[in-house]
């Protein structure tokens, strides 16, 4: 299996979120960047397991500038064979998907794995877009992926439950919890990652279909109103008369 895993660089979950330039830019001051958790823990690790079981190659791809390289090396340390970086700052999902699809059309991949969403822009967009651009089936929110020759058995979340589906390669999926157990890179992996190929390719022409005009922080929470534990019934009265949610 020749597998392409799309990895995104995102701020660590515990990062403080602040904006600069009149609320138009994310303030990266003091922010730690990581590989988007779903890409790393589920998509990448499952891809590696499939490769280990039946041979093949795992390539990671990232759309971004050179400051993403340390994050890409992390994916190589976990076990990806090589990496591709499309040298453009991603501003919009559709144009980013076009960059990935342009590479994937040349690459002859059996499957393309994404994460279910990025934890910064929370789009859940790229996987489906890449699938449509490649005219391949899209399986979103996959929590299990088993290969039998060229046929995949996949469990996916649908509205109201789960479904087991079968699909032949090539396809695109987005990975959610359940697909694999996260791996921690070991020393050997980290050493090896330094010399694995990280190929930088230039972007194709693609204009931004959307743009972020500004950011906004939610209003600060008011103080918590405490209710006496001896008389919790008062809570329900307040939820009805004051908060009006009951």
């Amino acid at each position, binding site marked *: 299996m020749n597998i392409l895993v799309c990895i995104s660089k995102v701020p660590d979950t515990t990062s403080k979120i602040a904006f600069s330039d009149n609320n138009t830019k994310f303030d990266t001051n003091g922010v730690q960047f990581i590989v988007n958790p779903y890409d790393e823990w589920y998509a990448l690790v499952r891809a590696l397991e499939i490769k280990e079981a039946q041979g093949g190659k795992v390539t990671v791809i990232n759309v971004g500038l050179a400051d993403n390289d340390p994050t890409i090396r992390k994916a190589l340390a976990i076990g990806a064979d090589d990496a591709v970086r499309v040298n453009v700052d991603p501003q919009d999902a559709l144009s980013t998907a076009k960059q990935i699809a342009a590479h994937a059309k040349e690459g002859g991949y059996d499957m393309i794995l994404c994460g279910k969403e990025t934890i910064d822009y929370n789009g859940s967009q790229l996987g489906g877009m890449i699938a449509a651009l490649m005219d391949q089936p899209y399986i979103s929110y996959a929590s299990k992926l088993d290969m039998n020759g060229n046929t995949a058995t996949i469990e996916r979340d649908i509205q109201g439950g789960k479904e*087991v589906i079968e699909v032949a390669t090539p396809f695109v999926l987005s990975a959610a919890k359940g697909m694999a157990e996260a791996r921690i890179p070991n020393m050997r992996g980290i050493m090896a990652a330094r010399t694995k190929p990280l190929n930088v390719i230039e972007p194709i022409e693609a204009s931004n279909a959307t743009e972020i*005009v500004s950011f906004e922080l939610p209003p600060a929470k008011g103080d918590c109103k405490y209710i006496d534990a001896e008389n*919790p*019934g008062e*809570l329900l009265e307040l939820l009805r008369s004051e908060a009006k949610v009951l």
Partner: protein
Amino acid sequence: MSTIVYVNTNKGNVNKASLEAVSYAAQMGGEVIAVQFGDADSSELGNYGADKVVKVALNEFQPDQISKTLQKAADENGADTFVLSHDFSGKAIAPILSAQADAGLVSGAVALPSGDGTIKKAVFSGKAFAHMKINTPKRVISVLPNSIEKKEVGKSAAESSMDAVAASASLTVKEQKMESTDLPLTEGEKVVSAGRGLKGPENWGMIEELAKELGAATACSRPVSDMDWRPHHEHVGQTGVAIRPNLYIAVGISGAIQHLAGVNQSKVIVVINNDPEAPFFKSADYGIVGDAFEVVPKLLEKAKEMSFND
């Protein structure tokens, strides 16, 4: 302007989130064409603002086929906008539509487009909002469930039907494991959730009962589903589902940042915890410092007295 709304159905009912999508489209203005997949009573669609209802007899969830059918409906009606719910169905369909129509997509919108055309959505796992602009002539908007006010307009929509477009990228559905609950977590307006503070699965009876009295869905923290005390679909948070109910009651949950990521957009948060220092109180609107095993039974008694459930 004409808008196509993707309407999905479950067990013979139109999903509540689809009604919200119809209402969103109606409030944007212009003609609203609701394209309904699967058999269900569609009379509510007009009530929330659909001018036309087009029924498609396709019961399987085939994203490529659904997207191409929606695209065809758009072509036939000269529509330039698609509206969907940002639920599991919409998350699969919206990006395919976007790429097929070369239309910019704003996913998880929490408000109608504002005067300058920008659309507000939550980013950074609910820690901030972005105002987004779509640059393409066609656009796709998916609406975060339970984030806009549905408006009844009392129209009755003209009904027709169309065939699903054949698709190249299809899947074979082998098995369905539908949740037995009548109230899916992502659609619940009220949610009662509990964490490791409850000590064991045998103690969930009072949580389920309280939820039932309040007409709420049940949820849990990650360790609780990891230990199989509760089913996985109840796990909320960064790695589980993100929800946005009007009322979120958290019992015996510490309020770790990864848990908050899935619930911090709830309109009202109630925290019940015996540790006054539990971080969750910082995000709470109402708090009770006390032992869940004493507080919850008292709440339950009071809830029965006030009888919310009828």
